[in-house]
């Protein structure tokens, strides 16, 4: 499963409160993604475009179990690649169907605005402008199934195990 997109660069330890400030939980679902990175990169949500890729340093997504990964999906981020991704955040990426890879060394491989090609099935990340490559742990077949289904809830719905969704009820 290949994704190609324009890169936005972030540093180390980008935490869940930066991705999803807590006050957003009281906002309508369709507005919550407007507050992503409001503290560390105000205005970014107006610049990012569907399919763009986030490249970051160590321990991206440290902190809360809140659905911060979902807001990146709502911003239509194509993929997330980091030197390391917090494991709880990674679970949320899988479960909200956000392609995400931990690849040591990836942060220094990109400058903002360059183009990345990512394949979570093989774990490879390539900088299409410099040609440099790096590899992370590929997703297993089970995780790719969740991604293809569009997330864990979609998988449950497909299996007939959901009767209603939040605001859809």
């Amino acid at each position: 499963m290949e994704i190609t997109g324009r890169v936005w660069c972030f540093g180390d330890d980008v935490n869940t409160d930066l991705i999803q400030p807590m006050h957003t939980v009281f906002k309508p679902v369709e507005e919550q993604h407007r507050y992503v990175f409001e503290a560390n990169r105000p205005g970014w949500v107006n610049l990012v475009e569907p399919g763009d890729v986030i490249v970051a340093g160590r321990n991206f997504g440290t902190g809360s179990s809140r659905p911060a990964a979902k807001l990146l999906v709502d911003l239509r981020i194509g993929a997330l690649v980091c030197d390391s991704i917090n494991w709880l955040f990674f679970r949320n990426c899988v479960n909200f169907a956000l392609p995400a890879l931990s690849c040591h060394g990836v942060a220094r491989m990109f400058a903002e605005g360059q183009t990345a090609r990512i394949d979570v099935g093989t774990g490879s990340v390539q900088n299409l402008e410099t040609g440099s490559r790096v590899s992370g742990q590929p997703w297993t077949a089970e995780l790719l199934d969740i991604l293809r289904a569009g997330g864990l809830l979609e998988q449950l719905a497909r299996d007939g195990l959901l009767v209603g969704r939040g605001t859809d009820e």
Partner: protein
Amino acid sequence: MADMTMTEKILAGHSDREAIRPGDIVVTKVDTVVPLDMNFYDSMWAEPSKVFDPDRIVVIFDHVVPAPNRGVGEALERGRAFAKKMGISRLHDVGPDQGICHQLIADVPYAMPGEMLVCVDSHTCSGGALNCAARGIGAPELIYVMAKGFTWFQVGETVRYELSGSLRSHVTAKDLFLHLADRYGAHVGQNMEFGGSALPGLTMDQRRTLTTMCAEVSAEFAMFEPDEVLERHLRERGRSMDGGVLPDPDAVYAEVRSIELASVEPMVGLPGSVVHNTVGVSSAAGTPINRAFIGSCANGTVADLREAAAVLTGRRVSPEVTLFITPGSQAIYQQAVHEGIIATLADAGAVVTVSSCGMCAGFQNSLGPTDVCIASSTRNFAGRMGHPDAQIYLGSSGTVAASAVAGAIADVREFA
């Protein structure tokens, strides 16, 4: 196989495997699933058509309670209706059984030795104080586990902490954690296991402060060895320690680190994160503060309220400071009432609130841009307790009480 850590043994036992290794991905049964009030919010809820076992699910309303607005009121109503429909009898609704999930998980208890528990809060590693493999997961995953009764984990490597000696007076498990976070930093993808000769001197509350805070260094599972202290805690609640799991003698660790508890002094976490970012209190003392908070799943115990009361007896909170104190559960509040602690706190000018996650996540008394807060709660990310420009320092409940009196970060030992 006889070379697994406690976490590995519990994960192996729940995935019907003889042995597992760091890096393996295992599908495990889950013994207890704990949905919270926030699961029932519009943005997070999806209703499963069935649950795997209603007697293995505990619903706890703790983050934003009592409902401050209509949206939350509707979410709580949805949670009650779901529990009733599915036959889930264990519901901690707003009322006398109310409390922060991790406090109740330990106090009732719902975390049991050798078992697996998941909850939709990142501090769920707290339950490891009871030798339970407990883990925070996301909202959709919690719904999935409620329906299916299993999930997957990637096995992380384990760091073993050998604790020896005993904490000096006015030094707490919070200080021990802040010391550890400064010295060893992040534990991304790692489990943290605690043992050693200091264990008999560490209470359940102290252990839970430590395991709860392990979320702040990005640990996967945090775990204490089962011992007489845990056995007594369980016996007093009519439960046994039969499922308890010790590490194998040849368990393989990423690293074994020794900490002499007497070497720890009162510590302060500096704003932003605790990772390599805490100092001895003398380095932070004198920093003016105007907000103070004692509470959260890490430090809302009766021991924390006693610590605060010891400092506040005969003293007054600075007129420049608001001190909020939020007990970890209504049962703790009630015990504190009987001990006379609440009167001491209120007489000193502290505001004692109903039990909830409260200020820790900015749900009460939210901070403004110029506020400077010291809290004994869990997390000090920018924006965590309100405005992203507010400064959040962390310390023990005694340090917070002393600072509230002084109007600036203070050394609790000077208030003895």
